[in-house]
């Protein structure tokens, strides 16, 4: 009876070892196979993008938003102060100053209303995007298309 206990323990350990090996091999194969499938898929995508320019790649990712940022960059000087709509569900991208800054550096970007606008040092621009600005802005308009563009703010003295 006394001898059977170590034998039982040894059998349990052996079974556990075999079970562990099975789990290990199955998980390893499934995990590596699935992971490599994903990585190779991404590699194929990368190879397709190899000939594209930076603009083409960014346009593919960010669509019209990237075009709009390029438009602002081309039509404003580097020392410009630009008023953007607030970040909300209506303006998730255009309202994100951190994101916009990446494309528009070193221009200074701001959120705000007429009061903020009056205090900005020229040259000042206001973004026209969807329902923004909800207030009247004096100055000349530079339009990208019928809906979006910029206002070069020039208050009457």
């Amino acid at each position, binding site marked *: 009876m006394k001898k059977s206990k170590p034998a039982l323990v040894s059998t349990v350990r052996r079974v*556990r*070892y075999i*079970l*562990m090996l099975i*789990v*290990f091999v199955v*998980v*390893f194969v*499934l*995990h*590596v196979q*699935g*992971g*490599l*499938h*994903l*990585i*190779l898929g*991404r*590699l194929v995508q*990368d190879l397709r*993008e*190899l000939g594209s320019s*930076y603009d083409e*790649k*960014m346009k593919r*990712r*960010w669509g019209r938003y990237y075009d709009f940022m390029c438009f602002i960059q081309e039509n404003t000087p580097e020392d410009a102060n630009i008023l953007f709509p607030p970040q909300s569900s209506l303006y998730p991208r255009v309202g*994100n*100053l*951190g*994101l916009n*800054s*990446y494309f528009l*550096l*070193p221009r*200074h970007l701001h959120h705000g209303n007429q009061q903020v606008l009056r205090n900005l040092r020229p040259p000042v621009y206001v973004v026209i995007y969807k329902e923004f600005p909800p207030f009247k802005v004096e100055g000349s308009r530079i339009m990208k298309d019928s809906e979006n563009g910029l206002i070069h703010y020039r208050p009457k003295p």
Partner: protein
Amino acid sequence: MIPFVLLFICILFLGDSFTSTLKCKLGCWERFGLAYGLGLAIFTFGTFFSSLLGAPFSKGTLLLVLLICLTVIWCFKTKSRIGLNLRIRWNKPRLPMIILGAIILLVVLSSLFDSVVRPIYTWDALAIWGTKGKAIFSLGSVQAVKDYGAKPYYPLNIPIAMAVFYYFGEPFVKSIFSLYFVAILMVFYGSLKRCGCGYVASAGTLMLAVTPFVFFHSTIAYANLPMAFYYMASVIYLYQFFRDNNRSFLVLSSILVGVGCWTRAEGLIWLFPNLVVLSIYALMRKQWLDPILYLAPILAFFLPWSVFSHYITGARSPYASSALQSVRQLFTLNLETAYIWDILRYFYRQIFIKENWSVVHRVLGWGYVWPFFFCILVLYCTRIRKYSYLLSIMGLDILALFSIYYTVAISGGLYRVLEVGFNNSFNRVTLYFFPLILFQTMLLVSDDIQRWGSKT
């Protein structure tokens, strides 16, 4: 290309010189991995200091910082009589190891290729890290982060590193993250091989490399992967300290947590699990000075940034007030049970139901690692005592994760995180201790394989 390679070698040399001053016995894989992570962090920290002293961010300043850092470390090394250690022990690998190594190399090359081909395109990578890096580079001052980029209270390790790499072009900027991926794999492999057997270490490293979410993070420019590197390495070397009671590993672990605090704002939260378990260890062994020794390097990295952030950029982290509120609720036992259940349900969904272990691997998944961990833990529940410190740290990590969600919940943002398309937040935060889960699983597997291997 040549200046980039030269800078990369200098960073490796700086990191390796620094690590060797700690006199830790490390394998060559770990040395290379740590050399990159620590070399880059010391370089960015030195650049940050030079900027505080009024130096502009320029090639000349960067070169000067590199020379000063190297001189200081080499003076210390000479004084402590630590020579140049270029010896690399190399055992002839067997065929299965060569095959596993070749697959890992393929994965690493894919990650590097991806960073060269794809520009920085993900939201936070552009809005937070990319903008700050570009601002420092183009305006020539670290203080540019005051006006550009979201979340000004985030530390500057990654933005400064990005600014340095902008000198070589944007593809090189993204390679920072692929190189952190390589560093994670090297430290993971080296330490697992030291604690277990070589085959299991190679298999575990391959599993880590092909885990969809880890690979995905090596190709987007988020600071989560660098933070995961520092935290994973810090816990592994703390575990090594618990095993050997060698204080050099304690100091190394502490420096890595400190650099973690210099990489992401939540670095301090992940310090607590380590500190709590270390305090218990110190209490049991009556080594009272260990927790204090552990805190010193962390403060050296954290305090300068903290002072800069408060008094120069004027940024206040919103986490502190929410954390205080949740601690107050904890002490008054005024906990919101509805939030607790919501968070637990969310965790369950993320681990067991969502894409994490479905047959179709999705980009944001962890593959089969979570179920693997639980299976192995159940099989080897009798050996938990042997790894009690490591498992306690992981348990506290999960508690810390829960606290983060609870803090977000009481500050009113929980449903934004859980429901409104913020699906990868769980994976992004678990990324810090996820490699440890695989590490622990592989240690248990390795134990038994070695035991039965020696019997046969």
